[in-house]
């Protein structure tokens, strides 16, 4: 019987390993340590160099007065941070962004759960609906906002005028009070797709018997939703909240391509402000300090929110 060289090699290797194993258990342990080390090394090195190092550099630059171009700069300590907390512009932008995020999180979560419940019901053609409802997530944010930009600019005003509505007969993105809702609509239009799918996955972990048992005990629809559905969806909810929170506080693509922060700075978001300060106005170190303050806010809110859902889960 002739065996391929690979099989032979493999067999020899196996015998070798078996012998090693019977000799002492330490060799397997060493093998484990070595392999684990090799597995971790490349990813760890890249993460340190191209993820952690820029953050550390950023923290350092945020304590200087560098404009990003000139060869020399001074170390200024916490001056940039003190300036930020005194800056009315920053507070105004932060206020807008928090309002935007609250509405986004509320809208996305409620709509996401609602759509997931609909898409989970036993109806004909539900896989077609699922495919369609996830479709917006496949497109790039840039494409979506550029399309909606044209729709808001050219189509909605004509429709608004046709039905005789005064508010909708002009571009709502140019309206100081409504521009935010226009952006929110686009953001939710695309941003709800992934949470919906995640909630759908969460719904599928709920055992059917639980609902039946609850019905036998005389629970109504709202009680079933409150005590069964929501408690099974909590892990998903936690993930969705963190994701949406971050996408709301750091919103950039939509605002850059829909309003550029206008009209009159009414829709200026933090990320856009950082971008403008850093790349357009050459306030390099100041913009990094702004980014760090925002990062601390995001981390803090996320931590509180995770703690909150964890506690709920235990109960």
């Amino acid at each position, binding site marked *: 019987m002739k065996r391929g060289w690979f099989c032979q090699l493999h067999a020899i290797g196996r015998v070798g390993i078996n012998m090693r194993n019977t000799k002492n258990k330490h060799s397997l342990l060493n093998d484990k340590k070595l392999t684990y080390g090799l597995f971790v090394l490349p*990813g760890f090195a890249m993460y340190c160099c191209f993820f952690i190092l*820029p953050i550390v550099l950023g923290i350092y630059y945020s304590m200087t007065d560098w404009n990003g171009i000139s060869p020399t700069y001074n170390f200024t300590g916490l001056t940039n941070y003190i300036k930020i907390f005194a800056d009315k512009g920053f507070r105004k932008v932060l206020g807008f962004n928090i309002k935007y995020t609250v509405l986004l999180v509320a809208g996305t979560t409620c709509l996401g759960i609602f759509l997931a419940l609909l898409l989970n019901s036993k109806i004909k053609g539900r896989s077609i609906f699922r495919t369609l409802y996830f479709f917006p997530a496949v497109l790039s944010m840039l494409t979506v906002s550029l399309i909606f930009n044209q729709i808001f600019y050219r189509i909605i005003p004509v429709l608004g005028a046709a039905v005789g509505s005064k508010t909708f007969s002009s571009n709502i993105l140019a309206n100081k009070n409504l521009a935010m809702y226009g952006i929110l609509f686009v953001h939710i239009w695309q941003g709800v797709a992934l949470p919906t799918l995640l909630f759908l996955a969460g719904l599928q972990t709920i055992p059917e018997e639980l609902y039946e048992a609850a019905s036998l005990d005389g629970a109504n629809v709202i009680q079933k939703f409150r005590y069964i559905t929501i408690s099974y969806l909590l892990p998903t909810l936690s993930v969705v909240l963190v994701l949406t929170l971050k996408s709301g506080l750091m919103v950039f693509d939509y605002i850059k391509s829909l309003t550029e922060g206008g009209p009159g700075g009414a829709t200026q978001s933090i990320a856009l402000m950082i971008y403008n300060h850093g790349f357009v106005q050459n306030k390099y170190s100041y913009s990094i300090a702004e980014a*760090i303050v925002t990062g601390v806010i995001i981390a803090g809110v996320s931590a509180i929110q995770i703690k909150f859902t964890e506690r709920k889960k235990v109960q």
Partner: protein
Amino acid sequence: MTGKWMKNLLIYAFLGFGAFLILVPLYICIITTFKTEAESAISFFTLPKSFYLNNYIEILENPKLYYAFGNTLLVAGVSLACNFVIMPAMSFAVSRSMQDSKYFRVLYYFLLIGIFIPFQVRMMPLVKLMSGLGILNQRGLIILYIAQATCESVFLYVGFLATVNKNLEEAAYIDGANTFQTYLKVVLPLMKPIIATVMIREGLAYWNDFMLPLITLNRSWKSWTLTIFQYNFQSEFSVDYSLSFACFVIASLPIVIFYIIMQKQIIGGLTSGAVKE
């Protein structure tokens, strides 16, 4: 019985309305591309009178499109391949050593820190760092994408591996397999659903990313990706929006076709592996 009928009707009504909201913008976008500039200015919803193809011809004759397509494919493909080689192995090592080793536990949290740090903190120093290393190009972008995907990939893989029964691995060790063999032959196949999830998420993110290519590749048009191509095209031809819509359609076409072919796997992959606790 009538109650159930009513309920289904309501569900269809809501889902139909949502589908309408999703489809109308896409419909407008597509039909506009077949209209001349003059026709698109007067009618938005009607089908085009004659199928005007010059918008598409003009874009397809643009050599920048092919460079952009090639670059996007290269960057996304290589980044995904590297992610597939590096991340599951790293997560396996972290997941299986975390209980015994303090170092690996610290490492795990160290790898997760990035989830909460907004991109803007890294943005400016990153450009400086990369221009210093001379890698403000496609290769540099690939490295950035791999590093950037670490947090999310490790988080999802380690979470999934915690639910995988260790009996199979132990059986492999008893049979004399070494750690590498055990990983390759036993663990990796078990990780298929979560790998699909991560690959789809990262793949979409790489393909559609705008910000990183904007700050790293927006120099020579030979290194543009599809999103940069669209963005620059739009600023160049902002008046003629039938033309820019045609550009969006062509730039999105590859990913849309991919989605239509793979929809079962994508929806299935995302719903099965997404959140396992």
